């Protein structure tokens, strides 16, 4: 349903998206997982038809987003990163306006609006100006506005960022329902748990490139090999490098003024000895080991944590 081939987007000399390719099938939830600045929102912007690609192709339901933007947008629902509602208008009036942009109207649109507003849990607020809604309510209304025309493909840019747990859960449920109904769902997120809970397939993106892609099971299988050793404190970096050099398959992933992160092969039998030697370095404040997980895979691939 959504086909992305060699997609690139440049801003001057900066390549925000660099040759990204993936596809999202009907009924599938695909997650673009990456830290802030990885290129997720730019990719979503191009796929939504808001930005022109520098190179590559995006097709939605077989329609090229550049060549036939209106046909592609007609079957695409978009949930932007920030809540987008017309604050002076009520929830129902917002539905009436956004529905009319997709050629909907009359009793059918009114019924669909009422149904979705009730479904998302805003029934009691349907007639209230959207400007009086809480952040979570605005977010839910934004999702409703993307679903009015029953899109065959739904694109969500960080749909739950900054929301309370209840609203997050409600939006997760809604995304699952939309996918179950047969829509292709593409979402970007930097929440690992969200990606793990919702996505059938995940593309890990960093510096504008997809560096690993697969189903959750495939990614989990690949992370069995990686565990992370994290040291905090003002210790001598050269001593640590010397230590890492003695461990087969170990490498320094990330280093800053607070400490160093090292990837270790999970099969290593010397973990206890390594920990002991690391802790014996002067001025080490904290030593920890992260067991194999999606996060450890992510850090080993990108050298940085998702929250960064």
């Amino acid at each position, binding site marked *: 349903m959504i086909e992305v081939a060699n997609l690139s987007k440049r801003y001057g000399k900066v390549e925000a998206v660099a040759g990204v390719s993936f596809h999202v099938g009907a009924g599938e939830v695909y997650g673009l997982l990456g830290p802030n600045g990885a290129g997720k929102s730019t990719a979503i912007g191009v796929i*939504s*038809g*808001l930005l*022109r690609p520098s190179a590559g192709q995006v097709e939605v339901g077989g329609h090229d987003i550049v060549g036939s*933007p*209106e*046909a592609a*947008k*007609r079957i*695409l629902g*978009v949930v*932007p990163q*920030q809540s*987008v*509602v*017309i604050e*002076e*208008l009520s929830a129902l*009036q917002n539905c009436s*306006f*956004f529905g*009319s*942009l*997709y*050629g909907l*109207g009359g009793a059918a649109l009114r019924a669909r609006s009422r149904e979705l507003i009730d479904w998302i849990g805003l029934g009691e607020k349907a007639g209230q*100006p959207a400007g009086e809604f809480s952040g979570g309510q605005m977010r839910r209304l934004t999702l409703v*506005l993307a679903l009015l025309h029953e899109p065959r493909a739904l694109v969500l840019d960080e749909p739950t960022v900054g929301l309370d747990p209840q609203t997050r859960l409600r939006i997760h449920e809604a995304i699952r329902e939309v996918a179950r109904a047969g829509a292709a769902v593409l979402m970007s997120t930097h929440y690992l748990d969200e990606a793990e809970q919702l996505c059938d397939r995940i593309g890990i993106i960093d510096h504008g490139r997809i560096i690993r892609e697969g189903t959750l099971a495939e990614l989990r299988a690949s992370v069995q090999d990686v565990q992370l050793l994290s040291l905090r404190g003002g210790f001598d970096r050269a001593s640590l490098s010397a230590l890492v050099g003695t461990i087969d398959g170990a490498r320094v992933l990330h280093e800053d003024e607070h400490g160093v992160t090292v990837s270790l092969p999970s099969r290593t039998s010397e973990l206890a000895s390594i920990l002991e030697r690391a802790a014996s370095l002067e001025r080490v404040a904290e030593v920890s080991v992260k067991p194999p997980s999606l996060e450890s895979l992510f850090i080993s691939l990108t050298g940085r944590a998702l929250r960064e």
Partner: protein
Amino acid sequence: MRLPLFSMYWRRSLRKPGSIILWMLIPFVFMAIYTLAFGGDGDITPRVGLAVVDRDSSLVSGLVRGAFGQGELSNLIDLKEAADTADVAEMFAREEASAALVIPAGFADSVLALGDARLLLLTNPRQTISPQIAEGVVGALVSMGNGLVSIFAAPIGMIRGLSQSDSMSADVVAATARAFFETGESAPGLAALDDISVSIVEEDKGGDELDEFNMAALFFPGLVMFALFTVSLSLETRFLYDRTRKVTHRIVSAPVRPARIVAEQRLYAVSFLLAVAVVSALVGGIIWRIAPTGLATAGVIATALVFFIAGLNGTIFSLSNSVRATSAISSFLMMALVVVGGGFFPAEFWPEWMQRISRVVPTGIANLGLTRALTGRVIGVSLPALFVYSGLFFVAGIIAGRRRIT
């Protein structure tokens, strides 16, 4: 044809019209102040308070005082009697007089002796323009008086002789009168004094009720023009907020062409400004009893003006996503265009070179056109130039807006 954005913008404006109503009130507040200042009877000529201290109390000094209180001059000069210069100083302090004319004792004698007769003019040091007007009027009258005195020098000499002699024969009086008559008859241009009756007759300009001048018709269109600029600024700020809050992006992600989005925005801006213009004109026309003269022409000019304003501000607000920057540029241009266009004070009062500038800027053309249409005058400005401005800026607004949202 469905216009979803156009309808949505109208619905939003009607739901929260507060700030726009405030902007719409501007011309009414200003016009009310103008009416209070000038009385609203159409006479916008300032009246100058002139105190007179008559130390001579003669026939000649009476003639001088009387000259200020007659005919058209009495509309300009508000003559006030003052006992002495101390009285004048108090009147100056209370700003009841802008100037004072002191007629010294012996003034009549000096005039009749054809000697050096002097009048003393004091001006109020607190005021700026009115004392200069008083100076001009007194100077003009003195020049005219000097001219008459030099023409009638001989008979005036005879009067002086009469006043100095102990006895006055009927023959001498008759000779003096005859001398006045003959001088008048022989003086160039004064032969018509036989049957003197000068009045001002205006040329028939073919318009209706031209003399029924309404001050509001002169000032109100310019003030409404200013209000249209401010309301337009408010609308464009709303469009800009929609852009920065990504509402416009969300609309672009729907199957609607960007050009159509911008066209509907411009259409809404024009329709809203036209509504503001019509409501203001109706309410202002009723309050200040502006005669419904030249409405068709005024309507065409107002429509062109609205297209120009919507296009200009649409272009400016498409230059940047900064409210501060765009508002500053727009406000500066608004003030410059409204002032140069005579929005606050009619351009007809300005020096010729400034009027020439006013007649080529769109606001000047529109304002002059509107005031002249509403007062039944000949339009006398290039309306095609106004239409070109309007068309150019309206199209520029659409092009710039489209570039900004895609």
